[in-house]
């Protein structure tokens, strides 16, 4: 399978014009400090810079990328910086919804297996008296609402509450949206970072 058709999912590519009067070597020299970060190793040639990152710090402005190549090429209107950056985080974010959908399915299966037990528990519960404890006089005086017998699954306590698949669906949706946001945002941010570095005095 040719990954070229889908690798845009976890790769960010782009090109920027090198400011007039700057040589390829100068442009790469200006970009090089971006790779002086913890967990980053890089190699610079005459017109190419390759880097890889292992566990970059959160404060690294390129922390989202694991590896990449920056190359100086001759364009029609002068020199161009062409880059190709790989991000496992973007790929992970795209796949995360599948994981949460699996959790949803697991929750449904576990709930289905519990139904007979719940019915038995409810029957047992029905035998218990319905009496509620008396309200404390302090709470009566302060005007707190009198307690009611909680309906099934609506108790304030955590005990006996059954997990629902809804949060898994919600998180699957959140990660799908986050992927789109991240793919656009990180593309723009890295472009701005390179442009600023090239233009820096």
């Amino acid at each position, binding site marked *: 399978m040719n990954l070229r058709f889908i690798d845009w999912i976890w790769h960010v590519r782009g090109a920027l014009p090198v400011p007039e009067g700057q040589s390829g070597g100068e442009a790469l020299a200006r970009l090089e400090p971006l790779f002086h970060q913890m967990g980053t190793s890089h190699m610079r040639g005459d017109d190419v810079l390759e880097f890889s990152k292992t566990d970059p710090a*959160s404060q690294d402005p390129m922390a989202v990328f694991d590896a990449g190549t920056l190359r100086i090429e001759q364009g029609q209107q002068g020199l161009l910086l062409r880059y190709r950056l790989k991000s496992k985080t973007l790929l992970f974010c795209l796949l995360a919804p599948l994981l949460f959908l699996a959790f949803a399915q697991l929750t449904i299966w576990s709930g289905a297996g519990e139904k007979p037990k719940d019915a038995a528990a409810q029957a047992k519960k029905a035998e218990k008296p319905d009496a509620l404890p008396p309200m404390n006089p302090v709470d009566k005086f302060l005007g707190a609402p009198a307690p009611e017998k909680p309906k099934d699954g609506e108790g*304030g306590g955590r005990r006996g509450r*059954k997990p629902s698949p809804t949060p898994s669906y919600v998180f699957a949706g959140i990660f799908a949206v986050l992927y789109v946001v991240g793919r656009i945002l990180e593309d723009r941010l890295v472009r701005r970072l390179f442009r600023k570095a090239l233009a820096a005095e």
Partner: protein
Amino acid sequence: MIGADAPVTIGWENVSRVEGGPIRRFVFTWFQPFALFALLAFWYYAPNSIAKPSTAIGIGIGFKALLLGLEWVNPRFASWRLTWKEFTTDLFFVGLGYTILRLVDSYIGSDAVAKLILDHFHWEKLAWFTTLPLLVQAFLIAFMFDFVQYWMHRGMHNWYPLWLTHAPHHYITQLNINKGAVGNPVELFLIGLGVGGFFDFLPRAFLLAGVFGLTIGIYQHINVRFNTPRLWRFLFNTTEHHSLHHSQDYEATRSNYSGTFIFIDRMFGTCVDGEAELLGMEGGRRMSIREQMTFPFTEAWKAMREKLGRPVAAEPVSAVPAE
């Protein structure tokens, strides 16, 4: 000696204050007490029709979104700014907590175990708790949970097998609102254990107890500069205390173990007042999600092999043990 390994600030008089105009200073001085009392009043007087867990979940999400906004408006440190990657990673761990961990918890968590024991023995003698004033019940639930959490957390910093589960959480290099959820799932399960399940409380008391966590404990991991009032920081945990606990300085990490009530640390002599900006382990190496998941098991395997006398391939030390 504290501060020997990495820079830390000790003493409230040395902690930076909120900068800006009088409105900004007022808001970031009184926001925390206001939120606490407002939410306590809400749950105390809310009609039964809305005093239910689904409302609490909604309020919790809304409050976190508000705090994310405050992180943007008044950050404590620029180096702790939330990035897309940090937000996504944090949210992944939050997601685990709301989904698979909740599922596991429902079968083997402390409440499930308590339910099993209570159902078996019919220990309804503890039902007198429900006759106490609501706020007392709420405080007792929150205190019991935090007291158990304090010792569990302190145990994690002092006993190697428990430390292995907790170490991944100490690889975070900045504090943000969802960072409390970041860690190995085994730890997240252990830290959620409590004894509250053995006692009967009114449902409303549980909702009120949740307010202590939502409006106090939550500030452990937040990138907001507050002028925290004196009484608040004497009684309650703050982001200042917790940043020291997460600092790159080894001695500083051995302080401030409680989640909500810092007076528990004061009781046992483990409280240190101050703050730190440089956080993490191994000089600030950020652990990947994959390593967070496998760390306790791979490190335990290495330790076992060492103990059994088989040589382990030379590798750099990946974590400073707690002892």
